[in-house]
């Protein structure tokens, strides 16, 4: 049964003057197939994706967060009766787009292992201790300037089965919606000076070393809280808009 058509019979995308989002440089993003990362061998598509122009579905997106974020959701050290073990850190930064414009009021979700390198997930069989005072999950909304701030403990590195003596560098997973479907990003942040980068295929899948470096947070002495927490800064750049509206 055909559905009603929204928008009126003559409202074309050109008349709507939609603006799409800029494509990323392939050197800045990992490929799908990277054989050193073994799990990609059976999960990467064999065919290159079809590039499609951005329409209404791609330039809009869920604007969620209101009512979904509690006052302590940004603080992964305050979710249990006691505080978790490990080095307390502030992780903060700005979410901006490729033109430097802030992305305000956007939902940032994070998850991580505890200081021993163990996830509070049934699937993690690494024999490092769980911390009864740490789940490792947080969320916040960026503020009017795109700023976000989490309090947590520095996660430990953990072994995985990708290759002999494989270890993931210490990392925090981040998920961001941005303003549009086209901006959706899931990534990981790493910590400066970690000796495990060279043997990590997930980080090294990114072709350009300068792009890889964007995933390494910076120690931020200005944001450390004396007698309480170290701080690391990590800015996130989501895709920027095209300069001109979508036209024929």
């Amino acid at each position: 049964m055909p559905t009603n058509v929204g928008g009126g019979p003559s409202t074309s995308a050109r008349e709507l003057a939609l603006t799409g989002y800029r494509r990323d440089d392939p050197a800045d993003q990992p490929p799908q197939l990277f054989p050193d990362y073994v799990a990609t061998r059976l999960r990467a598509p064999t065919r290159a994706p079809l590039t499609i122009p951005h329409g209404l579905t791609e330039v809009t997106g869920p604007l969620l967060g209101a009512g979904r974020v509690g006052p302590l959701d940004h603080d992964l050290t305050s979710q249990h009766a006691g505080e978790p073990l490990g080095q307390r850190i502030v992780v903060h930064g700005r979410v901006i787009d490729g033109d430097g414009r802030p992305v305000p009021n956007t939902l940032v979700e994070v998850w991580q292992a505890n200081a021993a390198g163990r996830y509070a997930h049934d699937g993690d069989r690494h024999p490092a201790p769980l911390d009864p005072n740490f789940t490792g999950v947080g969320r916040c909304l960026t503020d009017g300037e795109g700023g976000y701030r989490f309090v947590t403990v520095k996660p430990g590195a953990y072994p995985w089965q990708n290759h002999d003596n494989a270890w993931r560098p210490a990392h925090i997973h981040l998920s961001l919606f941005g303003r549009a479907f086209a901006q959706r990003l899931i990534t990981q942040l790493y910590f400066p000076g970690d000796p495990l980068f060279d043997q990590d295929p997930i980080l090294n899948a990114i072709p350009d070393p300068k792009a890889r470096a964007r995933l390494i947070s910076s120690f931020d002495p200005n944001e450390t809280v004396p007698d309480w927490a170290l701080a690391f800064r990590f800015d996130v750049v989501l895709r920027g808009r095209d300069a001109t509206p979508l036209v024929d």
Partner: protein
Amino acid sequence: MPEASTPSQTVGPFFSIGLSWPDGPFAVPEGTPGALWLRGRVLDGAGDPVPDALVETWQADPDGRFDHPDDPRGGAERADGFRGFGRSATDADGRFAILLLKPGALPGPDGGRQAPHVDVSVFARGLLRRLVTRLYFPEEEAANAADPVLALLDDAARATLVATRTDDGYRFDIRLQGDGETAFLDV
């Protein structure tokens, strides 16, 4: 000077501790009249289920509108709690399920129309970047035949994007690699 985007990384195997919402699968509240279950399986290159994938959907409402400032047409206010966004992790059999409403058609480029569709994101361990695809509806043969995205695909690829009808909604399997590989899109 434009800045390069932050690179993507895999969601990893443990995302369910961070990305599970009790209301995740409900792009529309349970019991909403007309609500349909979108169900499917995510399968890998060996044809095995992917038990650690995350599927997300994004779509227009039944009137073809988006409650979003970048949809200039307005008129998207609704009383039924339609959210447009659904999120479902796969289970041990690779199955996902999202409750939604069928979207309306949309204006497309060049004065044409887009057939009703749902944009689908797939994240998983072993995927370094998001995979994006679209779901189209089997009863919309005429609209699908005129859809500008489906027109870019060969017959076999196009067939992977059209769902099949079920008793309570639609079935849409996602084959990441190999036989019947789903057509993925670069948005």
